């Protein structure tokens, strides 16, 4: 009986995202049918594109790497109860700073590598901290300020690589930094495959964050702040401090997402290389989908990455455009916090109970 309850406990938080995923896939099926393609075949091709062979599998994991890290960063902020929407800016600043550090910090490859990680983390963290500080000190709504700061950060990074730090070596003047020294590159996990050391870092990060949130005092403070800020304050938790701390780490980890992408896959900062694939937004969806559980976020990130690489495979082999992946994702998030059926009446009943107490 105890086991049964344990299983129920384990499954209950999963039911909601699973339902959302089903609705997402159903909507995708509708769109596929609308174009006049076979739903089953298309999804089959999609599956193969994501997991069909070892090459595709590693490509999926490579794509998942920055998404996991961004998702983890956001999970911290969400757990603390703040809507950090600025992962994109934080990631891009982290990436460009990491690239610059590995180019211009003198020293051995290891020193460069270390300073690149430090620069990436700090850049993302401080940018995020700025929004947190504006919220704490001046009540500037973080949800919106972080969104707007994205545009500023991306444009600023674009300026850096278009003007002062542009790679002038090639014939065509692209908006990118010069290539970083090979000694600083993160090693690939398998020769010839795109997945790199960053994936391992991301997975370790997920485990560490899970433990930190679940079992340490700081984690407890962050979670209680998110669940009820009044309760946290009443219990002696310093609200502002915990919020700023959460925002700093949140942005810092997003910065790391940019860092590993630069050091492990691009080997330079290329304008648009991080924004066009929408890593930050996919990371956001992963965190939302997993209800900010770090382990769940990692799993959701891999799922969403698979959806995207699968969609690319689908586009190569069928008439269905790959944008269907974004449609599925959108629907999925739209309903991930919805209260369906079972949950639905429970909430209704609860609401009336609360009124009843009045």
């Amino acid at each position, binding site marked *: 009986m105890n086991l049964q*309850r344990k299983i129920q*406990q384990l499954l209950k938080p999963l039911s909601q995202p699973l339902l959302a995923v089903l609705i997402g896939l159903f909507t995708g099926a509708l769109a596929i049918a609308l174009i006049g393609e076979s739903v089953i075949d298309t999804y089959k091709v999609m599956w193969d594109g994501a997991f069909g062979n070892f090459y595709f599998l590693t490509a999926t994991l490579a794509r998942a790497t920055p998404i996991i890290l961004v998702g983890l960063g956001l999970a911290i902020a969400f757990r603390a109860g703040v809507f950090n929407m600025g992962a994109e800016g934080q990631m891009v600043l982290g990436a460009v700073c990491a690239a610059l550090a590995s180019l211009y910090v003198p020293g051995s490859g290891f020193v460069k590598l270390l300073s690149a990680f430090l620069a990436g983390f700090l850049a993302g963290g401080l940018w995020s901290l700025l929004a947190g500080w504006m919220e704490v000190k001046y009540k500037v709504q973080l949800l919106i300020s972080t969104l707007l700061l994205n545009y500023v950060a991306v444009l600023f990074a674009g300026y850096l690589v278009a003007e002062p730090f542009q790679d002038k070596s090639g014939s065509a003047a692209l908006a990118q930094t010069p290539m970083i020294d090979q000694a600083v590159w993160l090693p690939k996990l398998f020769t010839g495959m795109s997945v790199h050391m960053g994936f391992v870092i991301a997975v370790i990060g997920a485990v560490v964050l899970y433990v930190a949130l679940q*079992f*340490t*005092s*700081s984690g*407890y403070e962050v*979670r*209680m702040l998110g*669940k*009820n800020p*009044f*309760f*946290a*304050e*009443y*219990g*002696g*938790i*310093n609200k502002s401090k915990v919020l700023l701390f959460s925002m700093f780490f949140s942005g810092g980890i997003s910065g790391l997402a940019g860092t590993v992408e630069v050091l492990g896959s691009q080997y330079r900062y290329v304008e648009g290389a991080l924004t066009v694939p929408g890593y930050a937004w996919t990371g956001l969806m992963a965190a939302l989908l997993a209800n900010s559980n770090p382990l769940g976020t990692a799993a959701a990130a891999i799922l969403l990455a698979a959806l995207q690489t699968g969609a690319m495979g689908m586009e190569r082999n069928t008439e269905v455009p790959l944008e269907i992946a974004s449609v599925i994702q959108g629907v999925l998030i739209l309903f991930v916090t919805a209260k369906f059926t079972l949950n639905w009446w429970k909430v209704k*009943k*609860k609401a*009336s*109970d609360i*009124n*009843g*107490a*009045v």
Partner: protein
Amino acid sequence: MTYRLEMKEMTKKYGDFLANDGISIQLKKGEVLAIVGENGAGKTTLMRMLYGLEQPTSGEIKLNGDQTQFYGPRDSIKQGIGMVHQHFMLFSDFTVTENIVIGHEPINNGFFNRKLASEQVQKLSDQYKIPVNPSKKAGDCSVGEQQRIEILKVLYQGAEIIILDEPTAVLTPFEVDELLKTIRYLADQGKSIILITHKLPEVMKVADHVTVLRNGRVTGNVKKVDTSIDELAKMMVGRELQQLSERNQLKGEPLLEVEAISIKGKGSKPVLDQLSLTVHRGEIVGIAGVSGNGQSELIQAITGLTSVDQGDIRLGSTNLTGKSVAFRRNEGLAHIPEDRFLWGAAKEATIEETGMMGYYNKKAFNKYSFILKKSFRGVVKGWIDRFEIKAKSLDDKSGNLSGGNLQKLIVARELGFETDFLIAAEPTRGVDIGAMEYIHEAILEKRNRGDGILLVSSELSEILLLSDRIAVMFEGKIVDILNRRDATEERLSVLMAGGKEDESSTKNTTTA
């Protein structure tokens, strides 16, 4: 004769829980029916069914002899039932007129005819002798005035049956008298009134008929003239009430010293005005007062949730002024908050997590900044045993606990700190009698160990039962402090209304 309203064998089940079990009431034209009972007796559920907010599991409602059903407030209003909620349903930014006419606004080609509305409100106010200022903003009105708005609103909606849910809880004694007069007058004009309350003196003053509920059942159905307060109390509680025991004086050295603190607040008047107060060891100091006279701010100032503009707060030899909440708690301050859902717990957190607040960083439960959950679980289990908290499992959400059980958990948590000083704000609000006695016992026990307790409660009976000394707050000041022996409900009532003892009891500063 046919009754204006009859509810027959009303039953309401929530899952396994029987909130109402075959309750019947009858109401005649021009009659005041009091429905009395303790918290959780089922009064609110019954009225919610009458007002269409809940559907009965079984039972029938007859209006003027005809069977009917209510599918929502809209429906009930249409059939002539009006409800004055305990917590006012007002729009503070709207004017008195707008608040009264909303839902039935006078319309002129789709436009809101505010002028006509204002005239109608004035007329209604004159007709029923319920004075209001139609153009004032509801948010600027006193509590008594806001209640008058609510009453006029249901009259404007054309209600023949008016439900008043605990209407006197928030009023000054003077305002209570005015309200009772209004109720009588409305009944004389042919309205039927249902008064929900647990305050028996008021029942004796105004009701024609009394229905007593206990645990979802009717335990008494009598005419006022045939009964007495004692008999009603017995029917309400089901046994003799505990009499307060004589107690030995313990009063030791001063523990908490509040010295001339002020908080400016937003309005013109300060929220706390040069307030001074001392709580000694081995003493319970009760704060009495009509809610909204600065009690909440006083608690928040002492606990560090609000900063003071002036004055000092000391605990023993430590100055707490300007210090953080955490610092104060470490110095030996525990706090049962007035609102358990807002301050006292996180609904989404597990029971264990809610209990852990304040303990997670204590040495006994924390190693290398990891929380030692295993050692802590034993502590929570101890609380659950001692206070008989009904919980499915420690991993269940705090929000799933019933109000009383959650309150017991919070009380257990705060007592568990074993601090020298405790603030107990509304420690038994909304809990059943069993839980109430537990909590009272625990607080007294703490006092008898020589700790100091500051008790804030809107229930005078609770203050009188527990306190060694009683301080009365009015408009941010303490107007007087009485010893337990000298305090009577009458004397406190006068003080609570802002009147000095030597002045006549009718003098009142809050009337508009």
